[in-house]
């Protein structure tokens, strides 16, 4: 019975969106209902994560159709971790949006669109077949286009056009990949695909499929040659939206790479995962170099998203249980800290009217509390010891050392060092020195609850890393042994049907 309630992660956001849409944009209930529903879903997602950890994978069969034929939702530890993370960020963003979203945006359905976005994101994390992954991707993209263009000043429209065109190209290629997959494999259910792909691991077309999907998901996740679009669109929209986009949206792409390259494309890791490693190094390096050349808080943060996606891909490329756990740990840490930093930049923008380093300075004298929050989040992002960033980088780089990939470890450390540099640049430009920033009458206090929530999470993870590590370790365990996932979806498999646990464990 509890299992059936997992459908709420997808249904409740739509339901809320529709009701908010129908009651009209002026109602005070837009804000109250949004906060209530997000808080409810947040609590339920944490409960759901614990439930999945204790009782194993939850599979929902829509309309009671058996697995390879019907539509299914699968909640394993990875999916539920991502859903819980999404809802945490959604809560912080909603708390931040209540005082900052202006009347015009609210009247153009800001809150309903946000819930449609949530439905798409949760659905993408939970779906068990690759076509519905496409559908949920489109749902979240349509909502994100609208949220990005909302307010329609010239900058926003220009960047939204780029974002829409790029994503439409990726979607067309995604459909082509689905057509090819269905042609070759005769199924689109991920568990069923995993079985069939293991059975014909020799088929060279599998690598072609892997590359097509890597292109699609790589575009959404902004990995090395495909990241050029990212910094632009995240700059103009209001900070609440930037925080959710910067924290969660690119990570949907990373999640899709995680899912497909651990469950489906494990036939030839010496090519596919080696390629992921090379791409991850380039992503880490170019992202961080891009950040150094920027002089605006939001743009610096956007470039750092790119470099940090490199670390996650590094974890998948190494493809050992510890590396996967480390990459997941990194995702959790990164999403929390990055959203916190975006929200802080939003608070700076609300109170001063700008995020340019050249126009700001000396905010530490105005609010020591905001400065302290920034410092904690920034040092966590750079990976200083008592905070969550240290442990996440440590686990991945240690896994790299075990594998003897010293070059990649060196690039990771270099990236971390340069991150510290550009965080200090923001610190010096915005918070330190003489107070020369412009002032706006907006109060700072109502903006802080969401930021405090996220920053205390990064401190909490830093103090008790073993709690989170147990979760990501369980997730990595399920990822390295796809039999668990397959049997949960399709029922017990006959022994010797060719499904093997991870091949590339450390010697």
């Amino acid at each position, binding site marked *: 019975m509890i299992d*059936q309630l997992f459908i709420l992660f997808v249904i409740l956001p*739509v339901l809320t969106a*529709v009701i908010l849409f129908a009651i009209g944009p002026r109602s005070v209930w837009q804000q109250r209902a949004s906060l209530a529903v997000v808080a409810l879903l947040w609590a339920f997602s944490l409960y759901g994560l614990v439930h999945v950890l204790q009782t194993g994978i939850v599979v*929902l069969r829509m*309309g*009671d159709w058996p697995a390879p034929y019907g539509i299914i939702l699968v909640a394993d530890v990875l999916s539920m971790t991502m859903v819980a993370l999404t809802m945490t960020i959604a809560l912080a963003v909603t708390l931040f949006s209540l005082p900052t979203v202006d009347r015009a945006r609210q009247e153009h359905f800001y809150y309903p669109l946000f819930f449609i976005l949530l439905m798409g994101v949760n659905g993408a994390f939970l779906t068990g077949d690759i076509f519905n992954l496409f559908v949920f991707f489109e749902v979240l993209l349509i909502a994100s286009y609208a949220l990005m263009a909302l307010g329609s000043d010239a900058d926003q429209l220009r960047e939204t056009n780029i974002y829409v065109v790029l994503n439409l190209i990726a979607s067309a290629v995604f459909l082509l990949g689905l057509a090819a997959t269905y042609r070759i494999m005769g199924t689109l259910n991920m568990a069923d695909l995993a079985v069939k792909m293991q059975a014909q691991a020799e088929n060279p077309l599998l690598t072609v499929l892997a590359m097509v999907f890597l292109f699609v998901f790589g575009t959404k996740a902004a990995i090395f040659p495909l990241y050029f679009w990212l910094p632009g669109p995240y700059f103009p929209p209001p900070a609440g939206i930037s925080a959710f986009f910067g924290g969660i949206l690119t990570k949907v792409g990373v999640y899709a790479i995680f899912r497909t390259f651990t469950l489906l494309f494990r036939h030839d890791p010496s090519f596919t995962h080696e390629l992921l490693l090379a791409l991850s190094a380039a992503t880490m390096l170019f992202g961080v170099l891009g950040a150094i050349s920027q002089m605006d808080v939001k743009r610096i943060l956007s470039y750092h998203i790119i470099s940090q996606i490199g670390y996650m891909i590094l974890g998948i490329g190494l493809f050992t249980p510890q590396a996967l756990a480390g990459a997941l740990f990194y995702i959790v840490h990164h999403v929390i800290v990055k959203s916190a930093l975006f929200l802080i930049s939003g608070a700076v923008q609300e109170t001063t009217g700008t995020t340019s380093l050249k126009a700001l300075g000396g905010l530490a004298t105005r609010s020591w509390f905001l400065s302290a929050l920034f410092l904690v989040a920034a040092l966590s992002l750079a990976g200083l010891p008592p905070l969550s960033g240290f442990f996440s980088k440590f686990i991945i780089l240690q896994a790299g050392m075990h594998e003897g990939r010293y070059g990649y470890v060196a690039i990771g450390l270099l990236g971390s060092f340069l991150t510290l540099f550009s965080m200090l640049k923001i610190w010096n430009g915005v918070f330190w020195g003489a107070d020369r920033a412009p002032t706006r009458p907006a109060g700072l206090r109502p903006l802080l609850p969401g930021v405090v929530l996220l920053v205390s999470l990064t401190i909490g993870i830093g103090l008790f890393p073993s709690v989170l590590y147990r979760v990501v370790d369980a997730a990595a365990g399920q990822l390295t042994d796809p039999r668990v996932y397959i049997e949960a979806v399709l029922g017990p498999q006959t022994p010797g049907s060719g499904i093997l646990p991870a091949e590339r464990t450390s010697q």
Partner: protein
Amino acid sequence: MTSLVLSTATRFLLPLMLLFSLFLLLRGHNDPGGGFVGGLVAATGFVLYALAYGVEAAQRVLRVHPRVLIAIGLLCALGSGALACMSGQPFLTGLWSGYEIPVLGKVGTPLVFDVGVYVMVVGVTLLIIFSLAEE
């Protein structure tokens, strides 16, 4: 855009198209048709009316705002799915009443779902076209 032929024909065509859309909706379970196609046909009827008499007149004939139609349709569809959840079966499982009703045939949650799709398609299509026509 005032053509006597068009405006006179529309008066007869709109009810006919609505009737045909209902026919498509009801035969959809076992034959080609269904809520989606039916909804499109019904929406086309209102668009035709808007072409002949203007958007405002079509809005008046529709009586409710398309936004409300979207909400009602989605609630119908989700509600029919959730009904199965309440009896402990997976979401969207079809529940059947077991009685045969003349014209409608056997009634169950799939019909409610289809009606929801029908209403929502009418709402979405008209919302898009009306707001574009107003620009």
